[in-house]
């Protein structure tokens, strides 16, 4: 089962590496990992998406906790949380499909970030599921390049 884990780590050189290296050393699945600063400049927030049975996930959480640089580890999966991912994607553009593409961008609440003679770059924000669907839908029009941020997630406020 898929799990989304939020980790507060010391904002120090090597912290991301320690976490990523622990996953590979212990053979845990690592679907995505994203990191950024928080309101506290000494702390970074990491969102990890992993898959595994309960026993494995419990090991993942314990091993994360064991790292000296991690301050707080939370499995958000079974708690109310918000999860978002950013997609940037460049598509082939031609007169014949231009119209359809613009319509789909509206449907997916996307934004045009750049447009050229023969290509268009869009951004879409949403749950990883929505991002998957977006990619599937646009694929027939010809994807030239694509980048996903990986999921970021936090607790929903009270």
């Amino acid at each position: 089962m898929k799990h989304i884990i939020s980790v507060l780590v010391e904002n120090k050189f090597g912290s991301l590496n320690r976490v990523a290296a622990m996953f590979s050393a212990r053979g845990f699945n690592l679907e995505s990992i994203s990191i950024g600063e928080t309101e506290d400049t000494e702390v970074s927030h990491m969102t990890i998406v992993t898959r595994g049975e309960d026993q494995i996930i419990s090991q993942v959480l314990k091993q994360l906790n064991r790292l000296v640089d991690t301050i707080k580890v939370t499995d958000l999966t079974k708690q109310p949380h918000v999860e978002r991912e950013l997609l940037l994607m460049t598509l082939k553009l031609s007169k014949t499909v231009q119209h359809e593409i613009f319509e789909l961008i509206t449907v997916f609440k996307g934004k045009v970030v750049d447009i050229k003679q023969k290509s268009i770059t869009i951004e879409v924000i949403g749950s990883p599921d929505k991002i998957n669907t977006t990619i599937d839908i646009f694929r027939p029009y010809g994807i030239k390049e694509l980048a996903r941020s990986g999921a970021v997630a936090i607790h929903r406020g009270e």
Partner: protein
Amino acid sequence: MHSSGQTLNGSEIFFECLRREHVEYIFGYPGGSLLKVYETLHDVKDIQHILVRHEQGATHMAEGYARATGRPGVVLVTSGPGATNTVTGIANAYMDSSPMVVFTGQVPSSLIGNDAFQEADIVGITRPITKHNFLVKDVRELAITIRKAFFLATTGRPGPVLVDMPKDILNSSCVFEFPETVDIRGFKPTFKCHINEVEKAAQKIAKAQRPLLYIGGGVISAEASEELRTLAIQQNIPVTMTLQGLGAFPGNHPLSMGMLGMHGTYWANQAVNKCDLLIAVGARFDDRVTGKVDTFAPQAYKIHNDIDPTNVDKNIKVDLPIVGDAKNFLATLLEVMPEKKENREPWLSEINAWREQCPLTYSSEDDLLRTEFVIDEVSRQTSGNAVVVTDVGQHQMWTSQFYTFINPRSIITSGGLGTMGFGLPAAIGAAFGIKDRPIVLFCGDGGFMMNVQELVTAVHNKMPVKIFLINNSFLGMVRQWQELFHQEKYSFTDLGDSNPDFVKVAEAFGCKALKADNPESARQAITEALAYNEGPILVDFRVVKKDMVFPMVPAGGSISDMLLARLNPKTMV
């Protein structure tokens, strides 16, 4: 000794911090990045620097010292090759949870990342084999980093910590402040066990018909042997120990069942198989202990106490996990247990029947010299009071079987990593820490050569280490697997033609040496070696070549797969 508030350079701060951590010995080797440190060291009189002959030796010495004394071992090596030479020793200390702080010199900060001369990313290399590691980026961070390193190495589950110190940091100055306390937000081990869980454990123990204590090295590092002994005796519970746990409970007590697992005793393994309650304390269900996990202690309700939550439910799912310090667990258990002695006679007599059915024995009818005899004889002559260090191989397993460990901190051996070459330097390190007990090393003829250079360190410092070389002319343990599982293809395990004359080797180093090739000469050599305390002494025991260690549960097997003797007697001797 300098005081806080003075302006000092990085090297001076380094020694000031070590003083405040009560460091007695540094096991080290100089080099370019550490010239400033060695310059300062020249006038340091209250901390002894022991010059090793290879940095791997320094790490094993530090670990031997740590395991013998309970205090952290300290290593100091230069950048690049000096640092990479410590990798095996650090990994070893990590696997066996030994407290150790390794200081590495590093190229100047401005050159890091440039493939500078003698640069190695030792922080990157050792990340997965240290409890934590640091690169010091500012001289003002040096003191707090050293304080944190010692704190981390010795608190909770012990382990190695590395501090990488660039050359410019050691040369630059700042006002010295030694932080008395440390607070690391992400490091708060749970010491105190949850009382409800301990009470539940007490109830289970009170009701159990066939309980068994399965004790690991955690009990020794938590200094919890007293509590264990009281509990086992008061409640009449038999005790089996892991390789690292030997000595936690006296091996000569009727409740002691010796070691369990791959080369454990027949009766300990049978007891695991039949017990209805397994109480694991400071042990980690290693695969050499469990064999096939599905069939390990199949009838038992399992309680597991460990300081490290990641050890719980890692290899085996347990019924009652209790995270916390072993001493706290056992002491609390004693408080809540009813003090009545349970009648476990049927269970204990069942165990005794297994013990009589397949005791640990060896043939003594002929005049051939066997490893088991040597170890047995050393055990007798030292009354189980020696600090026993081993290398890795058959002799190591025989040591676990035939030396009677009575006290904690009596066996120092490479269990988790199984590092050949560990023994000699570890024994020297132990000898620095312990002066009032004999230090005995059992070492194979293969492993001895892996760190033989440290004989210099032993001779130069007159360390009274008894080096009992178990010379079977083979990489015996590998040979054993070849015979049992690989169609007797003895590929590259026969050292007979290539081994040196070990007596001559020792003498060339200035080490006293003897040879023994039959039981009587062995007995005399042991007596002579134990009486000799002017420095190290080596005895070359020419033992039979093709003996095998039994019982043996093949890797990944169940208790029912246990081999009790050689399948094909013609391959003997």
